[in-house]
């Protein structure tokens, strides 16, 4: 006798049967009803039927909705569908990321990704071999709920299942919709039939995806406005920064090239009007990846990918270090002290207070400050490096195109930090410059130096004077182009520069400019022992020159 639907025993039995569909044991937690899991996972949509959280390896199913659709007996198929995402399609989010980038290349400006539908087609082919009728019940239930108003994409999607499962037209797709589709898109039914008989015969997943895009695009009137509500159509989590970073580094590149070649040979791209976005630099890829993400979290996502890309570029120049030291903590907690009235309440360490004061913790709270991770005394003699980075509009935004000056600054910063040094960044354009704290951690410095203003160029001479007075033992490096010469030309500016030079261990003007012009403008300070001029002829040479400069300026610690 079968169990009543929704009971723990019924779920357990269905879970067992769902695993048998894939003929393998899976390392997933048993499914949870929606109500218990919602709010603690990646799911952002409204009323999903089911989804899988691949990070937590947790399947969640909406039992009341399943009942409402009249598909209460389809629980096994729905669970098998979710298991399919885990064990086969996509199995890893790295593959999902690779296909997602390919999708954005083929269909620029697509409002909503089709990737989930693509994986659903693959999963349902397998699940449908043994649980076809259960899946049909789910889709039928949804069609009934929609009340006949189906968008072209959903109509095509349903026609595909009718063809795949050898069903009569009308099994899933209402006759009126079929008729309307044939009028709007002549050859609609034969499209579906040819798709099914071609798609599942392709052996490589990237090729399948290009073919899928080339056919589905016909049923998307305006890609930029695409939004759809299809059962199980949003049940996969989005790949994370690590997955996309793999793609930026080249994961799936060969497969993508092969798939595009196959598509060209078979005429899929031309016949569908898809664009074959040209191979592009990694920053453009990152831009594509993040462009249509929901506003929430997009900036941080983009920054993480850009930062990793720049780190790789930095490493190309300075990875020759024999033994880079382990990263330092940006800050360390101090010992506990009594908190007093007037102290910042945020500095109270309640755990520490309870441990040391017991029941008196609320009367005598303890404070703990976060202090910079100071190096051991023997490292104190190492000079600090202050980097003045020009981010005016004459250089690109480093998040969108490679900015050679930003990269040079990052190379200098990374060199200094890997040699156990201290770095402070000053990012300027026009207006108030951005000033960092002293940094001992590469990632912090890299992220700070990715800041960009994009306005005019106005070197912050007053700040140079102030910082020089504060810390005369620092090495100061100005990274700019010929604009710096205009900034330094006025007499007041030259005086400030001279002051900065006198109050620094060394001040280096590292400029992408003609050496003769530099020598002419900087003549008043050029002969000073604490001033060095380093020029590069073109921006391409900035990174290599920065690595050499770092070697010369910052000696290896003994």
């Amino acid at each position, binding site marked *: 006798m079968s169990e009543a639907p929704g009971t723990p025993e019924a779920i357990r039995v269905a879970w067992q049967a769902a695993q048998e569909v894939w003929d393998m044991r899976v390392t997933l937690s048993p499914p949870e009803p929606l109500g218990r899991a919602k709010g603690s996972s990646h799911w952002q949509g409204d009323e999903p039927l089911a989804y899988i959280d691949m990070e937590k390896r947790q399947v969640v199913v909406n039992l009341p909705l399943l009942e409402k659709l009249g598909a209460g007996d389809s629980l096994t198929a729905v669970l098998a569908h979710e298991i399919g995402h885990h064990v086969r399609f996509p199995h890893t989010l790295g593959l999902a990321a690779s296909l997602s980038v390919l999708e954005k290349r083929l269909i620029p*400006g697509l409002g909503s990704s089709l990737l989930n539908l693509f994986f659903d087609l693959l999963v349902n082919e397998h699940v449908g071999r043994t649980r076809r009728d259960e899946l049909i019940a789910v889709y039928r239930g949804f069609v009934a709920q929609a009340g006949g108003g189906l968008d072209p994409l959903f109509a095509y999607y349903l026609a595909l299942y009718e*063809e795949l499962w050898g069903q009569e037209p009308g099994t899933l797709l209402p006759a009126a919709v079929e008729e309307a589709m044939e009028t709007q*898109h002549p050859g609609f039914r034969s499209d579906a039939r040819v798709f099914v008989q071609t798609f599942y*015969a392709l052996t490589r997943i990237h090729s399948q995806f290009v073919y899928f895009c080339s056919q589905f695009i016909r049923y998307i009137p305006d*890609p930029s406005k695409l939004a759809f509500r299809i059962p199980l159509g949003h049940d996969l989590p989005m790949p994370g920064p690590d997955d996309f970073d793999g793609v930026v580094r080249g994961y799936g590149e060969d497969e993508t090239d092969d798939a595009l070649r196959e598509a060209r040979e078979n005429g899929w791209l031309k016949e569908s009007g898809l664009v074959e976005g040209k191979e592009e630099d990694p920053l*453009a890829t990152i831009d594509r990846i993040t462009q249509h993400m929901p506003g929430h979290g997009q900036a941080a996502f983009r920054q993480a990918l850009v930062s990793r890309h720049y780190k790789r570029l930095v490493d190309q120049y300075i990875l020759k270090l024999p033994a880079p030291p382990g990263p330092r903590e940006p800050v360390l907690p101090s010992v506990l002290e009594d908190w007093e009235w007037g102290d910042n309440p945020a500095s109270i360490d309640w755990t520490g207070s309870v441990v040391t004061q017991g029941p008196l913790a609320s009367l005598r709270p303890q404070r703990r400050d976060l202090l910079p991770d100071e190096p051991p005394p023997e490292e104190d003699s190492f000079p600090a490096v202050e980097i003045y980075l020009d981010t005016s509009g004459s250089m690109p935004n480093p998040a969108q195109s490679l900015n050679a000056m930003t990269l040079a600054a990052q190379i200098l910063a990374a060199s200094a930090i890997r040699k156990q040094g201290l770095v402070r960044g000053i990012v300027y354009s026009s207006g108030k410059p951005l000033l960092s704290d002293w940094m001992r951690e590469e990632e912090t410095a890299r992220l700070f130096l990715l800041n960009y203003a994009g306005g005019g160029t106005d070197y912050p001479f007053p700040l140079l004077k102030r910082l020089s007075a504060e810390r005369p033992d620092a090495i100061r490096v100005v990274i700019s182009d010929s604009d710096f010469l205009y900034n330094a030309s006025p007499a007041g500016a030259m005086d400030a520069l001279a002051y900065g030079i006198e109050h620094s261990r060394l001040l280096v003007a590292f400029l992408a400019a003609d050496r003769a012009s530099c020598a002419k403008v900087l003549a008043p300070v050029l002969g000073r022992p604490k001033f060095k001029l380093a020029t590069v002829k073109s921006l391409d040479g900035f990174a290599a020159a920065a690595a050499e400069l770092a070697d010369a300026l910052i000696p290896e610690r003994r």
Partner: protein
Amino acid sequence: MSVDLNGIRAELERAPLVSPYPVELARAVVSDMLRLARLVPPSRGAWEEWARARGRPLMNEQLGMLAHILASTSLREAAVRTLRDRAIGPEKTLPSFFDKVAPLTAEMIRANAFRQEEFLRRFVEWLGGEVQGESRKQMERRLEQLDYRKTLDEYARAEKAREAEAARRAKLLQEAAQREADARGWRE
């Protein structure tokens, strides 16, 4: 006699083809099936004549696949049982089977689930058997669905509409690509 098509396909999945069957061996396997059904197998001359006939350039490789299926699945048993009841000699009708599957290459039959199903259904149709769990009408309907030549003909009929849509779409997507490139702004 009904044939369990899903069962046969599952058996085939478990017995992958390692190398193609030589023609002589393939003919022998099919001839054995006929002998077991107490029928006279075709002569060597008849086999060669059928393979030479116009419109059957793939017959020998199709014969190789048929032999593989008969040798590695329960289809042979089902075929023998069904053929025993038939009055007409196979030499009269076997070529008609190869005519119906004429465009299918051995690779298609081996690797494409739909083409494999079409091949098997055409064979069951030639046998005069039935597919388990399906009525005659359902069988015909499924064969119609699987008839790739017919599907492609229907597909080609809407070619003009599709071309016009593709041209419009290409323009739309190129504009979107341009907008994205412009938004990225400055290029070195």
